[in-house]
């Protein structure tokens, strides 16, 4: 039996909603598949509403606004146009196709046109078929909160806490926000006040950067404890605190659907050599691919995978790649969505097996940690040799197979990302590669390696004024070294710093503006 498409529509009060009313007043019929949500202006429509609607199974989303020039709020509709175009790109990336999202300008007197457009849209959706994500709608399984917390307390050594306070003294957030204290969170939990912790903002404020754990005498792995708490903490609070409208995690969740079909390799330059199968697989990660979300920052994140492929090709490797690459699930795991994380882990494991790869190379520290540490834990086995690109290149340099032939006369300061550094202990390989580039001088910040300070945001959570201070602090530190270029291996760090740099700060922006580059891009530049 053919099911009818379900359309969620956002219509602006002054034009499109009135046009829809006029269609009714004029008794012009159109298919009843549409459910209208009235907003004052099409500019109110947040891409998160659209992506969320698709995640929840909408077959089509319709946005109706005033004709350009006629917006009741002057320019709201123009903003809507920009956002919708970006969202359409996002949707095609995830394999949903831009035709499922339609933006139309409909004036208050165009009742007939409204009916016509809706009829057409409904017809198109019938032809396109149902939203492939529809099947995924099942209720979240109930988690025993007390059980999760008591197990976490044991597993992460929280029970051995001595209340020494080193954690709070080290935490970069505690330094700027007195209300947050890892020590107090631990104590509250041990005393049985976990409800207070789980319903508050503290559980989402932690950057999970591991600085506290690095120094804790009792080896309390506080970030992992927080991670487990998040499984049973208030989703409502989380939704309030997440940045970029929660779209990155929404996309990750959508990728758990086996029906999803993406084309993740349209950024490959002509002449690049890759294959569907091979011994070495290059896993790109989501952030460079979905850079449309961060368009305003002009980061050109796609240069990262382009650079990696260039380098691999240069050393004679045609890496296997997944055209339907799915999110590693890092953010889902770290925001408490264990269920969907496991789904992604299983899917990825299956997809990776098909490529016959034995080695996985990734340019993202978060994917690296997730594949190397978390997948084996959650899947039981994960038979792949996981390497970060810096490790891979460092090995090649050791074997004499990689030699940089271009000279880059520049002073570089390297920042250790949390996931590569403290989480996985990878400090030297990036430095080795950087210092192998002729002309490059490597400088160090006072707080480096296991003492490096987190860029300031994790899993797109709690991006607020405290986080801003942490970021500004780190950038000032980088600048103070006198380096021309700040290099890191994590695209997330770049996004968070760039976000800060594009804002108009109360403090002088000069002190925090700095040229940044990804490690792989720097390395590729050094190769002709």
């Amino acid at each position, binding site marked *: 039996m053919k099911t009818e498409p379900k359309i969620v529509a956002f219509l602006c009060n002054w034009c499109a909603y009135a046009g829809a009313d006029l*269609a009714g007043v004029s008794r012009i*019929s159109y298919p009843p598949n549409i459910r209208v949500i009235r*907003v004052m202006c099409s500019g109110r429509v947040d891409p998160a509403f659209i992506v969320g*609607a698709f995640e929840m199974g909408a077959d089509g989303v319709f946005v109706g606004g005033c004709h350009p020039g006629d917006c009741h*709020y002057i320019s*709201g509709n123009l903003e809507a146009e920009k*956002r919708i175009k970006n969202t359409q790109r996002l949707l095609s990336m995830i394999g949903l196709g831009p035709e499922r999202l339609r933006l139309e300008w409909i004036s208050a007197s165009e009742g007939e046109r409204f009916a016509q457009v809706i009829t057409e849209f409904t017809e198109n959706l019938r032809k396109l078929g149902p939203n492939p994500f529809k099947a995924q709608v099942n209720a979240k399984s109930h988690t025993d909160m007390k059980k999760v917390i008591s197990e976490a307390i044991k597993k992460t050594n929280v029970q051995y806490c001595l209340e020494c306070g080193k954690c709070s003294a080290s935490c970069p957030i505690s330094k700027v926000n007195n209300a947050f204290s890892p020590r107090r969170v631990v104590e509250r939990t041990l005393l049985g006040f976990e409800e207070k912790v789980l319903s508050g903002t503290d559980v989402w404020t932690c950057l999970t950067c591991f600085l506290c754990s690095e120094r804790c005498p009792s080896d309390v792995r506080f970030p992992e404890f927080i991670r487990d708490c998040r499984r049973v903490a208030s989703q409502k609070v989380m939704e*309030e605190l997440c940045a970029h409208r929660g779209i990155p995690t929404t996309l990750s969740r959508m990728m758990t659907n086996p029906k999803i079909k993406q084309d993740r390799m349209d950024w490959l330059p002509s002449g690049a050599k890759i294959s569907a199968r091979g011994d070495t697989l290059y896993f790109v990660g989501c952030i460079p691919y979905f850079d449309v979300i961060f368009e305003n920052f002009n980061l050109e994140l796609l240069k990262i995978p382009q650079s990696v492929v260039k380098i691999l090709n240069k050393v004679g490797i045609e890496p296997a790649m997944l055209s339907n690459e799915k999110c590693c699930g890092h953010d889902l795991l770290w925001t408490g969505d264990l269920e969907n994380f496991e789904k992604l882990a299983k899917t990825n494991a299956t997809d990776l097996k098909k490529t016959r790869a034995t080695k996985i190379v990734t340019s993202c520290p978060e994917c690296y940690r997730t594949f190397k540490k978390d997948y084996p834990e959650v899947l039981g086995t994960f038979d792949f040799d996981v390497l970060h690109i810096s490790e891979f290149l460092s090995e090649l340099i050791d074997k004499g197979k990689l030699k940089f032939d271009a000279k880059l006369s520049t002073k570089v300061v390297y920042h250790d990302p949390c996931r590569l550094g403290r989480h996985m202990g990878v400090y030297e390989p990036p430095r080795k590669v950087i210092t192998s580039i002729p002309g490059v001088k490597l400088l160090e910040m006072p707080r480096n390696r296991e003492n490096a300070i987190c860029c300031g945001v994790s899993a797109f959570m709690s991006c*607020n*004024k405290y986080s801003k201070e942490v970021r500004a602090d780190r950038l000032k530190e980088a600048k103070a070294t006198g380096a021309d270029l700040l290099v890191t291996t994590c695209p997330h760090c770049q996004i968070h710093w760039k976000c800060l740099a594009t804002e108009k700060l109360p403090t002088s922006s000069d002190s925090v503006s700095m040229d940044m580059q990804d490690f792989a891009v720097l390395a590729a530049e050094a190769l002709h």
Partner: protein
Amino acid sequence: MESSEEVPRIGVFVCHCGINIGGVVDVPEVVEYSKTLPGVAYAEGNLYTCSSEGISKIKEGIAKHNLNRVIVASCTPRTHEPLFRAACEEAGVNRYLFEMANIRDQCSWAHMHEPEKATEKAKDLIRMAAAKARLLKPLEEPEIDVTPSALVIGGGISGMTSALCLANQGFKVYIVEKEPKLGGMLRNLNKLYPNMEDASEGLSQIAKRMKSNKKIKVLTSAAVKQVKGFIGNFEVTVEKANGKAMNFEVGTIIVATGATVFEPVGMYGYGEHENVITQLQLEQLLKKGQLKKPKKVVMIQCVGAREEKGRTYCSRICCTTALKNAMLIKEKCPDTDIYILFRDLQAYGTHYEDLHRMAQGKGIKFIKYVLEKPPQVIRGENGRLMVNVCHALLDEQVKISSDLVVLSTPLIQQESAKELSQMLKVPLGPDGFFFEAHVKLRPIDFATDGIYVCGTAHSPKDIAESLSQALGVASRAAIPMAVKRLKVEAITAVVDENLCSGCGTCVKLCPYNAIQKDEKGIARVTSVVCKGCGTCAASCPERAITMQHFTDEQIMAQALAALGRCVA
């Protein structure tokens, strides 16, 4: 975070609206369904919820069942939302704890032939409204002062009449006219029916009263360059021809910019033959006494009006103008033959009907033609024109050898209107004239508060009709200015300073410049300027902006409810 909030007790009132809804949607079924929704404490059906009986039932329901949220499932919120909100308020429920489900205009009326699907849709729409209602918060409406002065754009008869009436009621008026003299279209006209006095007489009378009224500031050779602000507090910039700019504040704005006459270039030989002219040009000739005694005059109606596509409207006054001018020619030259070629003669009401009869009495001939077979004007002998017309009743070709062909063309919107409409954010309708808030019951208001329209800027009409409207807008504009204080919409954006990271995106985006950064760099919204569009809320990277009454949570809840998912 949630302990201080009350438990929602929603009352759902489903309207039959006679048979408008009830005839398509199964209202009893929908009422029963509503009772099953989380948060709904009570549900009932009404015949006409907007009647005084229906309103009483809402108030009774609130009291009896201790309701703290109300949903009315009926027509479009664009008509009755204020009425139901007021009813809630009178019963002690904050007016913003009210939501509507549009199960008529966007359901029963649009899906008349699919009653089961319409019923299902109605249920979905109510479920969506309930999802939002559960999350609604009470809001207060701030009050603003109203500047007791008005701006009248256009110094024709309509603009001047409005200005005088407002000034006499005690308000200061600025009247802006682009020409060097006041008067508008009236300055081009000859004699006016039924008095048959010179247009200039009436004009000079009113212009005198204008000049002597100390409350009116007349700005001629001037144009409005910019308008900022909102009702009660418009900031106007006017530029004079000499380049000087004037800034002032007004509480209300009246658009009385008039219309212009369509030039039928290329139609019926206009522009080709010198004795094919428009009615306006005929007025000029008659006024200056330059009309040479024509032997046969042919007037063609509906030239460039009532077309199949394009200018589809009837310009109302062309037929009566033709009749009047025909009478004037006949008066001067009783032996002249006059033919009026028409499609439907728009001589309506009392004295225009009389004019038609009088014209018939004077022997003016009327020939009906149909749209499909328009007359032709070709060059005849001795510089005369040959007019061929197919007589609709007789279905015969009638040839008239004429020495003057007068084309009755429609009034059209001015070129400058597009710019003005964008400046004031008021719409133009499909026929190009300004589009009112509601065709029947708010004919001279714009949907934007504080701005009104009258005269031919609204649609073609005669002087008496223009003046009725001009006086009408004087009443409409006087209301906020007489009361001096206005309650402003409560639906505004609020920034959570704990989440704001000072990025400035919202400041850049707000079309009304309603957001500024304070000394700490945190964005702050000036609520009286905020229009509640929500563009800022949708772009804030930190989600620090709450768009009251249209929050992210509320909209997402509606979307989820639409897809069958209820979030408790």
